[in-house]
């Protein structure tokens, strides 16, 4: 029985070998041709496939922790007096639709109106060196605002975006107290003319959500990043911190960067270089 199998095996093997020999004898030219054809086809089809993948499509599956969105801000490229990112953020999220009520003083309005990005100017008193940077929600891995929220309105999405579920927010503003970055604003007045993409209304807290509607529609960047690029500064990079090949990860790997208030060990998703 064993012998028979062996013999059988040998027989098959020799047949296969001879087949392969024959094939190599015949196929030299044909293989080359097929290889070239496959290459040409791939070259023609691939751009289409890539375009298709990039084309915006609303998300139909829950977000996962396979990605973590973040920003890297190069403060050496951030220009004093430029507020392109702040204005773009306002337009994108309907913050520019806010109106000061008549009985409110200008100073109070500046203090109370909603802002998601603040331009901050730092000066080292010993050397006199001035640093400009945009300050927004830092999208912490361990966000204090989420810890303190009594209703679960303040939460961290699986992809690392810290945001407010306004349906659940009762406006207690505890998160505003807890945030070390002063990133959150409270909406004091009734709103009108809201944007479909960015609902907002009186009595809720809000802050930067890394243009969450853009994330869910498969777009590539945020309003502030686009504005900064349009101004020619390119100080902000947006991307996936978990993907080692993403532009943001590569840049983080390349240049020194810091978290603001590193001492709090919050592992922020927004990093700064040059501070």
């Amino acid at each position, binding site marked *: 029985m064993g012998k028979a199998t062996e013999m059988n095996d040998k027989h098959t093997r020799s047949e296969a070998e001879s087949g392969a020999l024959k094939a190599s004898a015949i196929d030299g030219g044909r293989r080359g041709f097929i290889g070239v054809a496959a290459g040409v086809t791939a070259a023609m089809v691939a751009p289409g496939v890539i375009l298709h993948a990039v084309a915006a499509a609303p*998300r*139909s599956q829950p977000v996962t922790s396979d990605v973590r969105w973040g920003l890297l801000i190069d403060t050496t490229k951030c220009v004093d007096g430029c507020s392109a990112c702040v204005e773009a953020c306002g337009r994108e999220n309907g913050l520019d639709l806010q109106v000061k009520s008549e009985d409110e003083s200008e100073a109070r309005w500046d203090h109370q109106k909603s802002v998601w990005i603040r331009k901050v100017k730092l000066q080292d008193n010993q050397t006199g060196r001035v640093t400009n940077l945009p300050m927004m929600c830092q999208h912490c891995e361990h966000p204090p605002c989420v810890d303190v929220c009594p209703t679960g309105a303040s939460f961290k999405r699986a992809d690392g975006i810290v945001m407010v579920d306004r*349906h659940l927010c009762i406006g207690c503003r505890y998160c505003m107290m807890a945030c070390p970055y002063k990133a959150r604003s409270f909406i004091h007045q009734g*709103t*009108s*003319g809201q944007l479909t993409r960015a*609902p907002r*209304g009186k009595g809720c807290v809000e802050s930067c959500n890394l243009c969450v*509607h853009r994330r869910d529609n498969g777009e590539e960047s945020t309003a502030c990043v686009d504005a900064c690029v349009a101004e020619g500064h390119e100080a902000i990079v947006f991307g996936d911190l978990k993907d080692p090949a993403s532009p943001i990860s590569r840049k983080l790997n390349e240049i020194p960067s810091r978290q603001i208030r590193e001492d709090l060990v919050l592992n922020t998703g927004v990093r700064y270089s040059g501070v």
Partner: protein
Amino acid sequence: MAKALVRAGLVAVGLVWVAFATNTALAGEVKRYVVEGSRAAELDSCVEPTERMRRMHMEFIKHQRISTVHEGIRGTKYSLTGCVDCHISYDVERIPKPINQPDQFCGACHAYTAVDLNCFDCHASVPNRPGVDADRAHREAGVEGLVRSGRNGEGH
């Protein structure tokens, strides 16, 4: 016996006719609230049968909002933006009328049933994807006051 049969038959025919007539009337009524040329105009009913929508729409969008806000799912069957897109109506100058106005699709029914409608305290009450100026639409329709309606409970 035969007479009874004929009578029963007549009653049955009558009932069927009434059912048909009601259905047609309802369908006609519903069509009036749907924007011509919108996705809904081609459908027999909303995303669920009309009766079910009337009773359950608040449940549908309540569950949907959780998956959208917390899980980022945007392509859902139920969506408040979808309500506005299909059921908005326009004035003679083609400016959309906020859907929560008391004579509009959402507003009319909520006013009739005396149920607070506070979706539009925060959400856009006119379709304003990029390119449409919602604030202007609101102003020109003269409804700034309405859109600034009080939050739940303040009206009582």
